[in-house]
């Protein structure tokens, strides 16, 4: 989002959180398929689609969103571009919604970048698990994936499409976060997003290899020098917000799941059987949006205007949606982020 006009009140805490009649942003996890085999994958992607919505079903859902005056749609996967009809869906949207796409970008050649520009795609969020070519290629199990991703970003940028480089903070990149910012500056990307590692999908299975402690995370983030041309986005203390109040997501099979990071924990119903906004009214969904939490961090609340941090990681480590988020160092409560609860480890078997 471009804040051309900055909020007039100082600090979000001065505002009441609006009770939204619909989410600000809706994520469509449009496919579970991906041609790569990434160790950090949350979706546990497969090569073949299973039980995914058809082109016509997604088009009908897009029409529903436009009829309901939605503004912002965010596609992710799997890898959205590995779905053969993905560009058809973008063409169908026809600039009636703001469109952002999370992608590994290895398939963004010059021709595709031109088409995306014509279709009105606003921003690409490109996953790079490391800003070091060899490490990225190893983590994706795909030789050449780093070079192709960087080429994809350059192609998008040359067409005037905004690019955010996303790095999931892990054992494999925490000492090299500066390289993300340097890469962004070198190719002209205006944002770098540092994301937390969620214990989902293959990332959960590879947790002991990938995870780092809360202190290591904070040290990594504090070590980054950010030039004026690049905005660094991160959600650690004091910016650990509960963003359930404004977000929504739908799985490849059409289940309303609140957030892609809640995908293994909640199911608010099928969009094939319900209007999406009926699932938005699910009692658990309402509870997550109400920020009904046991403890909250005053610093994070004051910057984010919400109570409690991420509900996905709170639930992952404590098994309660009302628990504290251990990724906030003030609310960590002694949780060792290197060790997953048995409850999650059992999912790996």
């Amino acid at each position, binding site marked *: *989002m471009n804040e*051309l*006009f900055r909020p007039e009140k100082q600090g979000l805490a001065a505002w009441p959180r*609006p009770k939204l009649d619909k989410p*600000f942003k809706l994520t469509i996890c449009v496919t579970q398929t991906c041609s790569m085999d990434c160790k950090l994958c949350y979706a546990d992607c497969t090569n073949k689609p299973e039980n995914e919505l058809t082109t016509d079903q997604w088009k009908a859902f897009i029409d529903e969103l436009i009829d309901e005056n939605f*503004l912002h749609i965010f596609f992710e996967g799997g890898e959205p571009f590995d779905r053969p009809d993905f560009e058809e869906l973008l063409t169908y949207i026809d600039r009636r919604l703001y469109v952002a796409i999370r992608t590994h970008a290895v398939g963004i050649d010059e021709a595709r970048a031109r088409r995306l520009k014509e279709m*009105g795609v606003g921003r690409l969020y490109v996953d790079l698990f490391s800003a070091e070519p060899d490490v990225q290629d190893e983590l994706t199990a795909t030789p050449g994936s780093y070079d192709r991703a960087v080429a994809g970003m350059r192609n998008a940028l040359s067409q005037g499409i905004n690019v955010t480089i996303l790095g999931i903070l892990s054992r494999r990149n925490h000492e090299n976060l500066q390289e993300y910012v340097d890469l962004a500056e070198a190719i002209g990307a205006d944002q770098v997003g540092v994301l937390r590692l969620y214990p989902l999908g293959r990332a959960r299975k590879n947790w002991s290899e990938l995870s780092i402690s809360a202190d290591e995370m904070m040290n990594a983030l504090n070590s980054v020098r950010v030039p004026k041309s690049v905005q660094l986005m991160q959600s650690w203390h004091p910016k650990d917000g509960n963003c359930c109040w404004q977000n929504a997501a739908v799985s490849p099979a059409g289940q309303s799941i609140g957030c892609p990071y809640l995908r293994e924990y909640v199911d608010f119903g099928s969009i094939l059987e319900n209007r999406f906004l009926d699932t938005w009214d699910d009692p658990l969904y309402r509870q997550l949006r109400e920020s009904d939490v046991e403890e909250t961090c005053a610093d994070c609340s004051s910057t984010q205007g919400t109570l409690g941090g991420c509900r996905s990681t709170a639930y992952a480590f404590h098994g309660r949606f009302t628990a504290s988020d251990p990724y906030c160092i003030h609310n960590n409560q002694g949780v060792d982020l290197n060790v997953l609860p048995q409850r999650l480890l059992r999912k790996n078997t």
Partner: protein
Amino acid sequence: MSFRNASYAKTPEVVLRPFAEWGHAYAFTPSEPDIIDLNSTAFYIVELCDGRPYGQIENEFIETVGARIGSDRARQQFQSGFEALLERNIISASE
């Protein structure tokens, strides 16, 4: 023709989503795809742009907002806000 001689309205394809409790709105600009956070001042200017001439829009803004912050400051806020909205094509000359 000076931009002060024209009439203005919200650009037709721009989509606004107000957040009444915050007194601000998001604007989606499809021609240059972006979502722009409008504060209450900018949102108010957009609301005033209903096809009226520039002078009428400016006068009503200064009359309303000036009562609270003074006419000079209100005029300053209006002019910078109006120009920014015009530059981002959120409002445009209506004829």
